[in-house]
């Protein structure tokens, strides 16, 4: 590159103070905007999923008596950033009748990587269409070759005296052997 018209390279004895000051002030003014932006950008780190209480999902009378699982949406308050919406689907569950007044409730999402699990064709268990994990009716891993590290996530549920089924809906971290709530 042609240097004509430019002053010669600075002399060997440099004004150390001016350079330090220029770097210092320059550094200070440069970090303000990126730091301000990053702090707001990292806001999601402090937001935890709000713990849900028990919500009514179905009545025990509406379930097949042979224990076949039934997929049902869970309706609850959905908080999405600034929006708060009452009584909308926040997820879905499989409910099976396991006794006269007992049920098993499974989160319908695969614990592997979060795909939506379906009932397998033979109806004797569940299958995830994404990575072919298969689960037994009780949610345990059916095929040892399944990529899922754990069985389907069972949820706390309560059958009231009037037959209403109330479920504590929760999501868990995906891809881990243990159930860790998110």
């Amino acid at each position, binding site marked *: *590159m042609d*240097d004509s*018209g*430019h*002053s010669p*390279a*600075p002399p060997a004895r*440099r*004004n150390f103070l*001016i*350079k330090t*000051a*220029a770097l210092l*002030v*320059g550094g*200070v*003014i440069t970090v*303000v*905007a*990126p730091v*301000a*932006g*990053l*702090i*707001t*950008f*990292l*806001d999601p780190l*402090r937001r935890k999923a709000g713990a849900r209480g028990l919500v009514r999902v179905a009545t025990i009378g509406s379930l097949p008596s042979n224990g076949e699982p039934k997929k049902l949406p869970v309706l609850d308050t959905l*908080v999405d*950033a*600034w*929006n*708060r*919406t009452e009584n909308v689907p926040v997820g879905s569950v499989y409910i099976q009748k396991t006794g006269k007044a007992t049920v098993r409730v499974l989160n319908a999402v695969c614990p592997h990587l979060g795909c939506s699990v379906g009932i397998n064709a033979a109806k004797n268990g569940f299958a995830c269409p994404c990575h072919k994990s298969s689960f037994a009716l009780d949610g345990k891993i059916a095929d040892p070759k399944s990529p899922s590290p754990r069985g389907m996530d069972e949820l706390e549920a309560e059958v009231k005296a009037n037959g209403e089924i109330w479920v504590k809906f929760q999501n868990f971290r995906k891809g881990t052997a243990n159930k860790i709530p998110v």
Partner: protein
Amino acid sequence: MKQESTNWLDQRTGYKALVHEALFENVPGGARWRYVWGSTLVFFFSVQVITGLFLWMAYSPSSQTAWESVYFIQNQMWGGWFLRGLHHFVAQAMTILLVFHLMQVIIDGAYRAPREVNFWSGVILLLLTLALSLTGYLLPWDQEGFWATAVSTNIIALSPGVGQAAQAVVIGGTDYGHHTLTRFFALHAGVIPGAIMLFIVVHIYFFRRHGVKPAEPKKGADVGFWPDQVLRDAVACLAVLLVVIFFIFRYHGAPLGAPADPAEQYSAARPEWYFLFLFQFLKYFPGSAEIVGAIIVPMLLMAVLVAMPYFGRWKLGHRFNLGFMATMIAGATLLTYLAMRADRNDPDYIASAKAADQDAERAVELANGGIPIAGAVSLMRADAYTQGPRIFSRNCSACHRYDGHDGLGGELPKDSISASDLKGFGSREWITRFLNPDSLVSPKHWGGTALKDGDMVSWLTEHVPDYTPEQKQVLQYAAWALSAESGLKSQREADGRDSAKIAIGLAFIRDTTKGCTSCHTFHERKKDGPDLTGYGSRAWMMDFISDPAHERFFGDNNDRMPSFGKEKTLTLQELGMVADWLRGDWYVAPKK
């Protein structure tokens, strides 16, 4: 080893020459403070790009989410208020820095040959930056930005021929909505910054091609850009940044008005302060002359600015340019001052601005409880605290008062009151005043109505003056008992505490010979006089306002009060909001 690897990189990229080129640009006559403006503009433009990108990650451009997402940034996200404030106040600072930069260029004659093209690229950058301000002002979709943008885009429509079409294209239709936001956002965050970057490259390329135009006389020997000028530039940036940070803390970020509502009158709309001079200027061009002030004159002035390099060839021309610049700046300053002074002395503007602040605060209070999908404006439209006074002012204040004013705090002619002042309606104080024959016929109650010659007034005048002190006490308790029917929030505690006294008062109300029910209906007792069951309660008030001429209330004795519900002047929701507001019953945010 280090030497080797830097050489390796340099052979492949040529970065050393580039760094040298960047840092050792010759500054003829040595570093000067007056050369800092260009660098500060580049620096603050980068700040805007960075803060803008981070804001982008949380912003959602649509009619139901723009205000909401900005509210969320400002009030809920970590340091969001600071980030917004930085973006907002740096934008304002840049406008001032642009003027300084332009002044320095003109004063130093740096627009003269061979730097004309560079000057023009600078004028384009100036216009692009103003376009950024204009588009950015709308994005929060608050009342202020919405109405100010409505004005500025209507100015576009004034242009002959293509005006209407241009406006429709800019706002994405005939009305302001989703596509106004998506378009403004794309312009603000994509098109205009892209164009600015391009022109900055062009501008700096020309600048480097011709070098710094030294301010004469030179103060010393030529030096390189680094480090002397860099230090000056950095210190100037720091100084501006400190001022900006002062304003961010002073205003806790950037202002955010109430959510935009095309149906809600907003009389406090003003452009950003640096456009106030244009706003004031337009006042001198009424009616069809508006196009002269809004479009023709500004374009002529721009033409003079663009032609400056030609004039500058002659000594006299340069002086003209200096004079023109000084006149423009003095004129804009004067107009800005006039605009501000006019607003300061305008009670209507002051009241509107105050109401706007209240609405903004209320919107945040409501939004903190969670916003429905329909957006924050739906919260404001259904809020008794916000709508009650407006409904009252529009429909009731022709006859009634609220604490002497029209509900919104507006003054009304003193002699225009012709029905009761409704502040505290249903409260103990209000009913006590009502049951006193003297104050009942005062202008605060029935003084201006035909009812002042009616049965209620004559009954009170006949009986009350002869009451013994004990009877007067019982009447007082009757007022409390009637007030308890209203279930007012503010009296809940007192009603519980005074239940024994209220029972005495209730006995008087129920006394069918000497008490209220000698004329009035009360629960199971039916008479011709107005129904006192649940007097002042929400349901009673809604029924009453809906149809005061109903036989349950005034019947044929109703004096001029319209049947707001029966005639469908007010909806059921509006009846409820005005009743709630008069009863002092509205959403209050739970204390944290």
